[in-house]
């Protein structure tokens, strides 16, 4: 028996998100900002944030997700799963064409998933490890068979992670050297027009888009402006209308939000739900001691960081699971700002003032300021902290080589503990050379067991109890410092309607957006 999980029509999406009396209008080009300039636009080959933002409007995945992380139809019209949670069948939308006019078929899906992503895409690979086989059943049906049930499977089809790429252009070629990489071909609402490096990326309306009437906009100009202050000016003087999250410094947000005709939303980040953490090297030095790690948690004034550095946006997490991840345990005792408690713990462990190196995240001013605040917090409870400044390359290298004591980072949660959270704590995920695995070196057999079981448990009730236990252990052990779930505000002119309608925000938001001018 197959259970229909969802069936919705994309065209109705905007009516859910806004209470606009006006009918959407066609026309107008939106100017926005991309920061930093992406390395390339072929999603699937590159999955960094700027590529996702721009190319999310060119490429599409099988599904999209609401701000509640409910799957919605995209290239797949509907989907089913068998009772064991092993065989997933996707019905593809008919009449979809690539930007070059070729039809989009099930063969493209199989090629993208089984060939393209298996070769190029580490995050897709993590999901594909659970997949036994992928088969096309006619032109418009694809069947995924899993090795064992995988709880978050349906959350894996977002465009940025599981992009559909055109088989007819890529099959049999060196993917990274493919001539079409410079002129990406997708199925999305906008087509690639021009990239003037260092200045602007221009997208234009896909007139053949498979949803009638969409998109409303004639095009999108993604401006490249390297300086934060200049980006703010660009919004102020009216050159750009939309400031996606992360494009202006946090300190500018309250000021810009006060401007006339300016709206702000914090929605549209739910799928990623970035979780800022402080790696603590569990292998050696003072950070090896659980009490030291707890002391760090007590010493930090996380409320201050949120209120002052992040302008009150975002949310201080209770423990290891963020609020947008599922299965959060809310009965744990919070680590409040308590310097005295921190000093007690340090005394208890006999901390001798050994120097502790702190590695800030080289992603802009706010992070630098945050490191300064944490450094000061820790110094005030008597920890001898020295900040080691570095750039992205150095940061990668240090973390990859485990050459640090404390280090800032943030990780996407991808809506499910098995996708975004367990990777930080699993001992099987300890491997030199990458800053994104279990860099802290935390090893706990019970935690490994619980996470592994929970990932493949079916249905959700089963998973919930396993995750509760994991959270209790982690809360006590403090393998990493849980700093904040970051707020990701998007600023835009209020006459830009229906901009953020999904759990990935502007990444695919321009599809429904329209200008009321």
């Amino acid at each position, binding site marked *: 028996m197959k259970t229909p999980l969802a069936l919705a029509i994309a065209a109705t999406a905007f009516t859910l998100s806004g209470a606009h009396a006006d009918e959407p209008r066609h026309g107008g080009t939106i100017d926005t900002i991309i920061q930093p300039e992406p390395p390339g636009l072929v999603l699937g080959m590159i999955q960094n944030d700027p590529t996702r933002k721009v190319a999310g409007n060119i490429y599409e995945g099988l599904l999209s997700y609401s701000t509640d992380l409910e799957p919605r139809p995209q290239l797949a019209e509907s989907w089913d799963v068998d009772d064991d949670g092993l065989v997933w069948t996707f019905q593809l939308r008919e009449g979809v064409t690539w930007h070059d006019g070729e039809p989009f078929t099930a063969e493209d899906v199989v090629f993208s998933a089984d060939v393209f992503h298996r070769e190029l895409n580490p995050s897709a690979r993590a999901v594909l490890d659970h997949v036994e086989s992928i088969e096309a059943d006619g032109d418009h049906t694809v069947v995924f068979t899993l090795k064992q049930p995988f709880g978050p499977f349906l959350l894996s089809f977002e465009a940025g992670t599981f992009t559909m790429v055109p088989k007819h252009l890529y099959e049999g070629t060196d993917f990274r050297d493919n001539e079409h990489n410079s002129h990406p071909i997708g199925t999305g609402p906008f087509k690639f027009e021009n990239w003037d490096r260092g200045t602007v990326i221009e997208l234009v309306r896909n007139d053949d888009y498979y949803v009638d009437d969409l998109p409303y906009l004639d095009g999108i100009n993604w401006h490249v402006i390297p300086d*934060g202050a200049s980006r703010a000016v660009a919004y102020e003087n009216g050159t750009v209308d939309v400031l996606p999250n992360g494009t202006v410094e946090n300190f500018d947000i309250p000021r810009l939000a006060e401007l006339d005709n300016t709206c702000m939303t914090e929605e549209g980040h739910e799928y990623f739900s970035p979780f800022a953490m402080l790696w603590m090297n569990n292998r050696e030095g003072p950070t090896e001691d659980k009490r030291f790690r707890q002391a760090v948690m007590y010493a930090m004034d996380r409320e201050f960081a949120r209120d002052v550095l992040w302008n009150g946006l975002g949310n201080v997490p209770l423990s290891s699971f963020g609020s947008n991840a599922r299965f959060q345990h809310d009965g744990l005792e919070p680590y409040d700002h308590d310097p005295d408690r921190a000093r007690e713990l340090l005394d208890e462990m006999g901390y001798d003032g050994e120097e502790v190196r702190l590695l800030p995240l080289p992603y802009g001013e706010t992070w630098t*300021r945050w490191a300064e605040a944490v450094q000061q917090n820790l110094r005030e409870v008597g920890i001898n902290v*020295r900040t080691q400044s570095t750039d992205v390359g150095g940061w990668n290298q240090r973390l990859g080589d485990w050459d640090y004591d404390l280090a800032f980072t943030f990780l996407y949660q991808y809506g499910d503990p098995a996708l975004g959270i367990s990777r930080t704590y699993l001992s099987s995920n300890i491997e030199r050379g990458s800053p994104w695995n279990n860099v802290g070196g935390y090893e706990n057999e019970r935690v490994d067991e619980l996470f592994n079981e929970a990932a493949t448990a079916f249905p959700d009730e089963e998973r919930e109890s396993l995750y509760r236990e994991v959270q209790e252990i982690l809360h006590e052990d403090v393998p990493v410092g849980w700093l904040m779930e970051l707020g990701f505000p998007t600023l835009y002119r209020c006459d830009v309607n229906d901009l953020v309608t999904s759990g990935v925000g502007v990444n695919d938001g321009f599809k429904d957006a329209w200008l009321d001018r």
Partner: protein
Amino acid sequence: MSFFARFAQNRGALIGLIILLTIIAMAILAPLLFPESPWRMVQRPFLPPMEVDGFPLGTDTMGRNVAAGLMHGAWVSLLIGLVSTTVALAIGVPLGAIAGYYGGLIDDALMRFTEFFQTIPNFALAIVLVAIMQPSITSIVLAIAIVSWPPVARLVRAEFLSLRNREYVEAARLVGQSNTTIILRQILPNTLSPIIVLASLMVATAILLESALSFLGLGDPNVMSWGYMIGAARTVIRQAWWLSFFPGVAILLTVLALNLVGEGLDDALNPKLARERS
């Protein structure tokens, strides 16, 4: 006329000296006036100047005392300027002296080496060096020194070239003094005045360079320097003008003062030129 009297004849130089002494005094008095770390978050953020007692210059993005930062920063900025200049002199003076004194192939080789460093744009090289060594006081000082020694070497070489055939140098050679003695005792002391003048300007340039590096996020996060303060404040320049204004003015005044003092030294050390100039 005494050295100082000649120096003081240049009114600008005197003003420069007074500014410079004030800044040095700031640097020395910083730990006494603001015993707490300048990194301490002590008040609410974005406090404008003169609004609350004890915070004459307001507070920064995180509620740190700008006045404390400015005073402690004086120490760091001056230190970076002085040390990097010293290091640059330590590289440039011997190289230039040897090249200028011996001439010939040695000169050729050393000058090619110097030109080589001048072929890579200064600021770009400084950025790369700091990025490679990772930002810290040491790497910044080294990078500044590495990009600023070539003019020293060229100056010293030119001086040596013009002095090495002076009759007193030839006389020294004729009485059998060794090359080392001639370089150190006969020629070097006579090149000191242009070196001192250049050095005073180099300190100024070093302070500017450090601030530019900090501006690009390549400052040392453990020390409060003026460059750091501007770099950190640039993102909030619209909300809090005072955060970049005061350190900016501090840099400006210091560089200005060093230049004025440099000119004064030039006048005082080269009385002939000074007379012509006035």
